[in-house]
């Protein structure tokens, strides 16, 4: 069943002297429960694409169709996890996680009940009362994911959530991410510039072309889970993705 579809998304940006066409008609179909990894050269418009789906930015042409209906604004069924986490430093961890619930007017008790579940899932219970600066980068990323999951969205939009992590922490989260996906059966769009990451996580890897970007190729991934980053079976797949990516990166330089 098609959960989310984008049709001919075009996006221009004004730069000083000219108009930059960032997205040049992006068509993508995402099934319910898909885990789609998006890769592409730096600056090709991956973040912009996610932001358009989230409703944080308006496309110049094309439309985003969710459950068969076009959407144009933000909505609690499409929640984004930002690359920098964008946790609120003035709130404690638990209050960060409960933020969306509070905005929705859910009473305090109910809120803490829900947040407890996700803090648990993310192994953050001990840090519920900490401020965000007291967390390591990996822990912050987990809070950001918990904050998104709490909203119980149909679609989770993740923009390079692991880019700032060191290798050890990233390996850990790669495993956790797969578990979460299996547990919650969410539909996930996951942007990364790390090919190995895409191969480990995705049910499908979509490669963006250089600007004006389209989706150049979609590669299905069918290995059994949990997959590990070191997994030698994935090497071939990584090479395949890289082969698609390399000429685009060249063009972009």
């Amino acid at each position: 069943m098609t959960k989310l579809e984008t049709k001919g998304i075009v996006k221009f940006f004004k730069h000083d002297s000219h108009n930059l066409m960032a997205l040049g008609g992006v068509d993508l179909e995402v099934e319910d429960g898909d885990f789609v990894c998006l890769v592409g050269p730096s600056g090709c418009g991956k973040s912009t694409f996610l932001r358009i789906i989230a409703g944080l930015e308006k496309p110049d042409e094309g439309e985003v169709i969710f459950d068969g209906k076009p959407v144009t604004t933000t909505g609690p069924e499409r929640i984004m996890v930002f690359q920098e986490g964008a946790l609120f430093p003035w709130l404690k961890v638990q209050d960060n996680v409960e933020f969306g619930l509070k905005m929705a007017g859910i009473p305090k008790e109910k809120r803490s009940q829900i947040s407890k579940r996700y803090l648990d899932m993310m192994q953050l219970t001990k840090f519920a009362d900490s401020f965000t600066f007291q967390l390591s980068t990996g822990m912050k990323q987990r809070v950001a994911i918990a904050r998104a999951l709490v909203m119980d969205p149909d679609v989770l939009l993740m923009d390079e959530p692991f880019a700032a992590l060191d290798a050890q922490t990233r390996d850990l989260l790669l495993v956790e991410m797969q578990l979460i996906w299996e547990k919650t059966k969410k539909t996930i769009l996951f942007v990364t510039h790390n090919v190995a990451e895409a191969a480990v996580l995705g049910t499908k890897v979509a490669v963006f072309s250089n600007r004006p970007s389209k989706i150049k190729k979609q590669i299905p991934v069918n290995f059994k889970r949990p997959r590990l980053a070191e997994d030698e079976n994935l090497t071939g797949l990584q090479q395949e993705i890289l082969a698609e990516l390399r000429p685009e990166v060249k063009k972009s330089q």
Partner: protein
Amino acid sequence: MNKITLAKKIAFYIILVILWQTISMSDIWPNNIFPSPYEVGEDLAYMASDGSLFFGIGTTILRLIVGLAIAIAGGIVLGVLMARIETINQTIGSLVLGLQSIPSIAWVPLAILWFGLTDTGIIFVTAIGAMFAVTINTYTGIKNIDPHYVEAARNMGAKGTQLITSVLLPAAFPYMISGFKQGWAFAWRGVIGAELLFSFLGLGFLLNVGRQLNDVSQVIAIMLVIMLIGMAVDGFIFKKIENKVMSRWGLR
């Protein structure tokens, strides 16, 4: 503060007072122009013993608090409006920048005309001198919020007033504090200046009396008091708030 620092500090102030006493005892300046620390201390003690000092301090502080409270409340509202509504920013905003550069003392003549020789007049001068600093800092603070915060909040369903109180104001708070601090500095200057010109109770009035009577030692005594109160507010209230916010933001 460790013992050596404390000792250094005490030594410094003792040397300062001794130097002062020496200069005043030498005949470089006549005594009525350059009083000795002893005379200043005597004046302070006298004003303290007849209660006029504490009454003056109390009056000034009360006016300051009311004026500053008005300035902060008004400044925040105006700052938020300017940051959220572009038309207000383009129109009233440009005026605010101008009003901000009118020294609060320049408002005194108008304040007397409009409010008479009343507390209201002094509070008006105090508040108007401080309000625009708060406004500008609130505005800058909101404009400088990491857009990711706002987007994340909108994405999670925050809207309207909720967005302002739950996200914009707390996120802009570190900036706003420096607005409050600047506001306090202007308010403090404003209240003393207004009292000096209104000559209507308070520390500024005592300063003016010293001046009217050519009593330099009273002038210096009141300046010391003004300075100590200023130091106390800066050092206790603002330092505390700043430290708290900074540490919560993980900056310290």
